[in-house]
């Protein structure tokens, strides 16, 4: 059964009025976020992604269009109704925004005040949340005593206090080092699986999207350029910006530089070819290189490779020099293409009679 649509943006526009100029930050945004998705919104700074995420919980009022949460138009909600809705939408930030005067415990307890829970119930809930994020031993410490990763864990616990259905992450890992980023993303993925919470994640880092997102939207100058599930967007990018984002995390591009520089590494002997092969579909990993090697008697010298597991399927490709009989080489390429592999001959040392 397909999961229900949780958040829907219909032709959302947002303008900021400064004295005489109007700055249109979001233009006709259409998005659908399904329950239990991890939805990434990626763009460079100034693309409008932070404004976009703030439209979802009504912190920014939209100029035109509709934001529907569970089918309800949020701009039609009264202020108290909007506040109730926000309690069901946790949010975490790049700079954590923990209250410096409160301990870890106090920070996590904060959203539970005025929730009708007794003091004992609140305490039990806070402890439960701290276990969930792995910080039970830090409850008496102040935010200033914690590392960045620990602060973000506290912020996550705080955001989850009222059992939200959605967690909005505004550049939540951008202030963290790569290792801590991985750990936080792992935690988010676990929460998504364990609690079934929908996650909307704003980032400028492609690696973050690759790591955990199921779906992705690429935003630039207030416009969604492309959206879809991560694998198809990655394997078959349509727009230049999408390609440039993908290249930031791929080293397959490197070979182009080597070719331009006529590097020794890519120098071919007569009869050899230099190819780039890339996965295009959701493939079950196959022993393709050894297959062509056995089948067609080809020697493959792998120059560089970049294969990652995205959404549980391999994505990326290899650059290799193939050496063998001319006809066999041609057949090998046909064989690869028959397996839905994109083959590009970058340099050809074959001599055609």
């Amino acid at each position, binding site marked *: 059964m397909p999961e229900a649509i949780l958040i829907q943006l219909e032709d959302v526009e947002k303008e900021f009025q400064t004295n005489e100029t109007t700055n249109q930050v979001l233009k006709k945004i259409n998005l659908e976020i399904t329950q239990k998705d991890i939805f990434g919104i990626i763009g460079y700074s100034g693309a409008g992604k932070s404004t976009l995420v703030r439209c979802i919980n009504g*912190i920014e009022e939209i100029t035109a269009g509709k934001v529907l949460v569970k089918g309800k138009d949020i701009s039609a909600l009264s202020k108290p109704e909007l506040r*109730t809705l926000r309690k069901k939408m946790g949010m975490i*930030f790049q700079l954590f925004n923990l209250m*410096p005067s409160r301990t870890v415990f106090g920070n996590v307890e*904060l*959203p539970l*005040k005025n929730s009708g829970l007794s003091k004992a119930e609140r305490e039990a809930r806070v402890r439960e949340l701290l276990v969930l994020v792995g910080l039970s031993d830090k409850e008496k410490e102040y935010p200033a005593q914690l590392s960045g990763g620990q602060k973000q864990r506290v912020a996550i616990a705080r955001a989850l206090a009222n059992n939200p259905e959605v967690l909005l992450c505004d550049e939540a890992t951008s202030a963290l080092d790569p290792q801590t980023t991985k750990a936080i993303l792992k935690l988010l993925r676990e929460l998504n699986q364990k609690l079934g919470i929908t996650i909307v994640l704003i980032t400028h880092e492609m690696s973050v999207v690759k790591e955990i997102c199921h779906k992705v939207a690429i935003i630039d100058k207030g416009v969604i350029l492309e959206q879809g599930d991560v694998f198809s967007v990655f394997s078959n990018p349509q727009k230049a910006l999408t390609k440039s984002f993908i290249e930031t995390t791929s080293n397959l591009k490197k070979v182009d530089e080597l070719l331009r520089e006529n590097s020794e590494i890519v120098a071919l002997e007569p009869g050899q070819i230099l190819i780039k092969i890339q996965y295009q579909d959701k493939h079950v990993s196959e022993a393709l290189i050894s297959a062509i090697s056995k089948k067609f008697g080809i020697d493959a010298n792998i120059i560089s490779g970049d294969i990652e597991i995205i959404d549980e399927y391999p994505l990326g490709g290899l650059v290799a020099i193939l050496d063998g009989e001319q006809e066999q080489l041609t057949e090998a390429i046909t064989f690869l293409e028959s397996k839905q592999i994109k083959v590009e001959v970058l340099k050809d040392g074959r001599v055609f009679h």
Partner: protein
Amino acid sequence: MDAFFTKFFPNVVPRMPEFYACVIQTFQMLFISGGISFVLSLLIGITLVVTKRGGILQNLIIFNILDKIINAFRSIPFVILVAALIPVTRALVGTAVGTIGTIFPLIVGITPFFSRQLESAFSEVSPGLVESAVTMGMGPFEIIFRVYLREGISSVARATTITVVNLMGLTAIVGIVGGGGLGDFAIRYGYQRNMLDATYAVVILLMIFISIIELLGSIIVEQTTHE
């Protein structure tokens, strides 16, 4: 000890009861007007922060009115303000002289300054904290109490210390309307009757008071800062 005081403060020692009375008057002026002004200034300071552009209860009309009133009052030198307020003071408290008569002008004199100090203290609370409170579904009053007042404590303590020191200065000035206090003592004896030791006795005492106030202020700041 007595011999020491008699030697260095020949004009103060015979007037000790009056000197003590002046100390008490100074404290009365300081605490009563300071206490009332603190409450008023908290209200005004918070109102300014939440009603300004981008504030959680943005209301530029209220903000601008308060802002202009504060600027207007701050432009009047305190001595002139005291004289100008005499009819109002008399109408309000029945008298414009004596310690009681000084409370009202002191409040009017210090509140604009105090409000500005507190406004900037609350403005130091990071907008990110306020935003995260909004995302938690907190209402404006919850945000005022749980974020601005709570996270602003150390800045408020700093602002209050500066204000109390300023207010001490104003209590000396209201001596001119018969407010009494240490300022009055120093002027009447030290200045008008040329008993310099009376002035120095007051100076030393005030320096001690101010040091204690600043010490208390910095202890509160330290206790409430967790960085």
